[in-house]
């Protein structure tokens, strides 16, 4: 019986890292998807701001409202537009870690 228990323990010890690696791959795929849609939204919104929409914001940081349907798949976080003296910066900052990380774009006025 001891041999059986040892064999089962060895099997479990070998299988657990494999199972973890699959779960880890799924998390990575989700994180990359989240980053991809965040980048796509920030790129599109930056293009709109650069085309002249930035003029509706005063100097300093402001929350930026995004209506993109894909934004519903983003984790909790905020879009911020910061109007500086020479440039304008749009940033996506997720609250949680491991969800694609922040994305920012900047352009000269």
């Amino acid at each position, binding site marked *: 019986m001891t041999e059986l228990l040892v064999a089962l323990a060895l099997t479990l010890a070998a299988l657990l890292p494999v199972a973890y690696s699959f779960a880890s791959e799924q998390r990575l*795929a989700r994180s990359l998807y989240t980053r991809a*849609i965040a980048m796509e939204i920030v*790129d599109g919104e930056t293009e709109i701001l650069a085309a002249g929409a930035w003029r509706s914001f005063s100097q300093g940081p402001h929350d930026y409202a995004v209506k993109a*349907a894909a934004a519903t*798949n983003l984790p909790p976080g905020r879009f911020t537009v910061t109007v500086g003296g020479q440039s304008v910066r749009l940033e996506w900052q997720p609250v949680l870690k491991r969800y694609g990380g922040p994305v920012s774009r900047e352009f000269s006025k």
Partner: protein
Amino acid sequence: MLLEAMAYIAILFAVLGAGFAAMYRCVGNSALLRLSADDIAVAMQTGERWRSEVRSARQIDSRDDSLRLELPRGTVLYAFRDNAVFRQEGDGPAVRLLSNVKASAAQLHSRQGVRVWTWELELNPRSKTSRIRPLFTFMAVHHGEAAQ
């Protein structure tokens, strides 16, 4: 001794059965994950191409499930039908860019005086148990004529 051997055989079969079930499930999930990753990559490439063409279009005409772009080098038509997105250059063949598409719609908006085309794209999830709707939003500023 015989009882012990039979118990070992029964346990061996149980462990092997569970192991094979787990392996087949992992193989299936891995294949779905790869398909989903491919879908996302192709959708992003298609979206970037669409944005680039919208930016350079002189005129854009939207009808039902299609978008006709008048580019300097000719006409390009993006159409959504049969759960796929097609792209057709001039009188050339329609090329399937995306399959497994659930919904696709492009709309023109005005944002602080800027004309913006937004393409909302939704793919069918590969996994039936997926909790995420694969949504993509592409936006591009149109500098050409205002016709729709």
